[in-house]
């Protein structure tokens, strides 16, 4: 590649790639300010140490009141300004106070714990929406605790356990660690608030201690961290499950507003009623739909029709049976007449007589009679015993 003749832009591009690959982004650099100038709201300066110099640009007017000779720590990205052919640090943050050992330690620990994953989102626990008992680890004196209790009492009175600790001074981090560990031994706490009011960077140092960070990380009870002012970020804030910008904000984060919950319940009730109403209406409409069908609307007509039908049939049956009975009666009468006509008693009534011989046998021929035989003659009103005196047979051919 070095054989051919390169263009300027190619070389610079090559260097830019090399710089980008180096990934010098969000780096903190300490040094002394020199060559400071502010032009059109942009600050230009060099950072130098005993052996080297780094060009810096900060797209911001000189808010920090930087002067040549000041020792600062700045955060930024290394990039290349191609048109002018140099690389520089594009500054994002400038720290002039609280620097030195403390700040360096802070940055180093922060990087270390971040690499270990202590700040990872996936380890952060959900805080309960409505905690049943909150533990507050804070100084028992001062306005911080008092303010938090007021806010909680106003929003949603809850059971509180106070774990009093020193929040600054030699060895106070031990107390904080012990408090967190003791609380974790209990079974009744579902939220911890670790709080401390505003103060100087030095005052907040307990919350930058590694053992405090680990105690927070290892807590199985979720922790809200609220340390210092809104713009203060301590390591505790990064490890905690939630960070509040102030202790008062933590109190508001910890409990819901009673009024909101009451509204929510109201809405829930409405929704419940609505669902049931709709269900009932739905069934009502189904029933209505069914009732609109002919079967229901004209049910009475249909029934009446059927009843009429039935009545007609009954009438017919009555008629038919009457007629049948009449017929029967007639038939019986006719037969009766016939029978009657054939009845021997009829014959007797007409004046004829019946002749019986011994053994109640009817005499129907002269041949049956013997002269001198006893015969019985029955007439309509009685009978007489007779003896046959003589007999004569008729020649039936003549008749």
């Amino acid at each position: 590649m070095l054989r051919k003749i390169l263009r300027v832009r190619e070389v610079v591009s090559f260097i830019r790639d090399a710089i980008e690959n180096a990934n010098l982004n969000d780096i903190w650099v300490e040094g002394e300010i020199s060559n400071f100038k502010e032009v059109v709201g942009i600050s230009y300066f060099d950072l130098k140490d005993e052996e080297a110099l780094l060009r810096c640009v900060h797209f911001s007017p000189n808010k920090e009141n930087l002067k040549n000779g000041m020792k600062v720590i700045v955060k930024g990205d290394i990039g290349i300004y191609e048109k002018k052919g140099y690389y520089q640090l594009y500054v994002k943050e400038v720290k002039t106070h609280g620097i030195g050992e403390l700040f360096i330690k802070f940055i180093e620990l922060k990087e270390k714990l971040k690499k270990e994953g202590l700040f990872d989102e996936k380890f952060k626990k959900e805080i309960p929406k409505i905690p049943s008992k909150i533990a507050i680890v804070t100084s028992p004196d001062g306005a911080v605790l008092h303010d938090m209790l007021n806010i909680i009492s106003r929003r949603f009175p809850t059971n509180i356990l106070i774990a009093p600790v020193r929040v600054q001074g030699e060895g106070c981090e031990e107390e904080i660690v012990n408090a967190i560990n003791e609380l974790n031994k209990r079974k009744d706490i579902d939220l911890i608030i670790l709080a401390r009011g505003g103060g100087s960077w030095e005052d907040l140092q307990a919350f930058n201690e590694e053992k405090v960070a680990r105690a927070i990380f290892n807590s199985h009870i979720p922790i809200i961290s609220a340390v210092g002012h809104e713009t203060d970020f301590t390591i505790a804030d990064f490890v905690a499950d939630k960070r509040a910008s102030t202790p008062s904000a933590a109190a508001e984060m910890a409990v819901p507003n009673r009024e909101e919950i009451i509204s929510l319940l109201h809405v829930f009730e409405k929704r419940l009623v609505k669902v049931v109403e709709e269900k009932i209406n739905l069934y009502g409409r189904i029933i209505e739909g069914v009732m609109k069908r002919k079967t229901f609307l004209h049910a009475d007509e249909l029934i009446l029709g059927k009843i009429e039908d039935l009545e007609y049939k009954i009438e017919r049956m009555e008629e038919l049976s009457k007629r049948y009975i009449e017929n029967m009666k007639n038939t019986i009468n006719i037969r009766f007449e016939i029978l009657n006509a054939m009845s021997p008693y009829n014959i007797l009534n007409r004046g004829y007589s019946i002749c019986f011989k011994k053994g109640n046998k009817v005499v129907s021929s002269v041949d049956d009679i013997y002269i001198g035989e006893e015969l019985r003659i029955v007439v309509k009103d009685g009978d007489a015993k007779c003896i046959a005196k003589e007999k004569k047979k008729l020649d039936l051919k003549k008749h």
Partner: protein
Amino acid sequence: MHCEGEKEIGFEEALKKLEEIIEELEKGELPLEETISKFEEGIKLCKLCREKIQKAEMKIEKLMEDIK
């Protein structure tokens, strides 16, 4: 909550259960009887939550263990 031995449901749990019931009801797939019984359960939970809110009071205690 009349019988003492009964484990009372926590406030947050109650609210969550209530929300679940409402979502299930709003799906509209339950038959009428179940709808009514879930409705009753929901209303009971609403009442319970309301009671808890009315009765809520702040009790403050201090951690006695030696943490110095």
